[in-house]
């Protein structure tokens, strides 16, 4: 094989999603839009679990809210034949993520579990990842945030509080995943059981519209849900190979 071929070969190898031969776990999430009622419980759950700051009205006015998980609203049609479609939007943990290529300091990279990481203490705040992310789910700390005492007593000790100048985003509740792995080790297990770990949003969803699990395990609930004929990915045409899969909303025939 010629030199050129070897180059291209090597290049392809490096172009493997996530730059791993295979993932150890491959965490994925499905969200059934036909079951989601848009109640926003997941949004609050995320805020509570991940020490998201209370930014205040002013920040919202400026468009500087920090919501790792947000609900997007899309109206369809006009009165009286009008519909509201709600879709929860969070980091899609793309296996070929635009944000990962652009970070100059590798503060965001793909880890062995197919997760798109964000290392706060490595981030220097070029904000280029937020520009490159087509889902716009990366949020920047434009200033330090305060928790008026005693609200600070609620802060989750397993999650770092981010300082000004740092990018942040949904981590699939990595602290819970690590905890689950920790428990597995305590029980002398190699692997985390299916359903043993759930991000805050999935755990709290009143309609159980969200499923989270390991895509590598064909028997896992999420794998089954991924085979649903209604499964689709948002902005799939961009080939980001996202790990969050939505199930189409069903248009009633009646």
């Amino acid at each position, binding site marked *: 094989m010629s030199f050129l071929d070897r180059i291209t070969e090597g290049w392809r190898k490096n172009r493997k999603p996530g730059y791993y031969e295979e993932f150890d776990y491959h965490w994925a999430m499905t969200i059934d839009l036909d079951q989601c009622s848009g109640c926003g419980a997941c949004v609050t759950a995320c805020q509570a679990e991940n020490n998201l700051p209370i930014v205040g009205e002013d920040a919202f006015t*400026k*468009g*500087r*809210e920090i919501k790792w998980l947000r609900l*997007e*609203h*899309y109206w369809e049609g006009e009165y009286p034949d009008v519909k509201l479609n709600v879709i929860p*939007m969070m980091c899609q943990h793309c296996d070929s993520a*635009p944000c990962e*290529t*652009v*970070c*100059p*300091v*590798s503060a965001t*990279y793909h880890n062995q579990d197919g997760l798109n990481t964000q290392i706060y203490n*490595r*981030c*220097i*705040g*070029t*904000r*280029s990842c*937020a*520009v*490159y992310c*087509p*889902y*716009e789910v990366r*949020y*920047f*700390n*434009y*200033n*330090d945030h305060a928790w008026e005492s005693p609200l600070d007593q609620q802060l989750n000790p397993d999650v770092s509080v981010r300082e*000004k*100048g*740092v*990018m942040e985003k949904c981590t699939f509740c990595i602290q819970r995943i690590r905890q689950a792995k920790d428990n597995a080790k305590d029980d002398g297990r190699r692997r985390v059981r299916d359903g043993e770990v759930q991000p805050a949003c999935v755990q709290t969803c009143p309609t159980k519209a969200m499923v989270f699990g390991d895509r590598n395990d064909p028997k896992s609930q999420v794998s089954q849900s991924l085979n649903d004929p209604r499964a689709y990915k948002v*902005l799939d045409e*961009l080939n980001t190979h996202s790990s969050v899969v939505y199930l189409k909303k069903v248009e009633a025939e009646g």
Partner: protein
Amino acid sequence: MDGELNQLKYTDIHNDVVRSIVETGPNYYIALITAFAFTLICFFFPWFYQLYYGIGAAGMNHPGVWGTYLASFIFWIGLSHSGTLLSCVLHITNSSWRKAMYRSAEAMTLFSLVVAAIMVMVHVGRPWFIHWAAPYPNQMEMWPNFRSPLLFDVMAITTYLTGSTIFIYMGSIPDFAAVRDRTQGWRNTMYSLMSLGWRGTDTEWHRLHWAYTFLAVLIIPLAVSVHSIVSWDFAMSIVPALHQTIFAPYFVVGAIYSGTAGIVTVMFVLRKFMDFGQYITELHFDNLGKLLLVLSLLWTYINIVEVFTGFYSGASGEIEALNYRLFGFYAPLYWEMIAFCAIAPLLCAFKSFRTSFVPMLVLSIAINIGMYTERFLIVATSLSRQYLPDAWGLYVPSAVEISILLGTFALFTTLFLLFVKVFPSVSMYEVKETMESPKKSTPAASEGSPA
């Protein structure tokens, strides 16, 4: 060659230039102090406030996470393409008319690069960790991400900065020597250090010319690459209206365009306030005018292509983004840009216009305003209209941002003012090269033969 230079004696050249260095009128000091004061008030104070408060001091938000800081960064990089690149090209093409102006041009390169580098510091959220973007062995055993266009940037800019510095310094060595021979005291000491013991022997001249040409050839591709890479910061993304194949050439052309305009401005200033009237003549403005005309046409062409392909794509994202740029909140800025950068320069078609100084000055400034707008629009309008309409937003620069923007110009001016007092801002020996050798009898010759 132009008539004026012929009446000049080598001595006059020396005297003029050395005078421009040694003799400093009160105006200079006033200018310098004002410039510096502005730098402090408009640039450093707001910046320190921002360091204390966070980037929130600027108007950026979600999704408009990039703003004027990045626009300024590109703008100054662009401006830097005036000098070194230009003077390299002209040096190789051996066009003698450049010789009077190239040094100040190169100085522009240098300082705009410096300002650009500072803008990066202003832009990032945690500048105190900026060194992490540099590859160096450390206890964290971490390396930067070599796939990142931003890292390419770091590399390219540092290389370019080094290159240009060497280029301008080497070109000035004989003149340092000349100044050294005409000054006493600390200046003499300083210039003897800077001239590295230049004697003016044939070997030295030979080596200088060889090395100089060599560098010139080296720098041209470098300069081109730098702005291509800057363009990739955007083009490598998948954001509608940023993800453009044409961006690299677009940016390079734009850079040279604004750079050339920048030179016109600077030369006007030099001519006016350092009365180099005899060295910087209509001829230079004429040629630069022609250059501007060509560049403006190129630039317009690329703009048309960009808009056309955008609309032709039929992709909702592209079309919305372009719509927003052309008819949205920032539309006035867009049309202002078209007026300044595409239409106004057409005046350069007339020699009478090219050779009249004040109109050229106005035009050059207009062009650079237009070019800044272009960079701002690229950043601001594309980010606020991306794939998910629910996440659309509007970014408006804050007072801090605008003040810092103005501050950068003050900073640039300060640096430049210092430069003209240290460097011979007109290259003496090269000007001489363009003159007939003087008659034997003149006393000037004895001390004046090249160096």
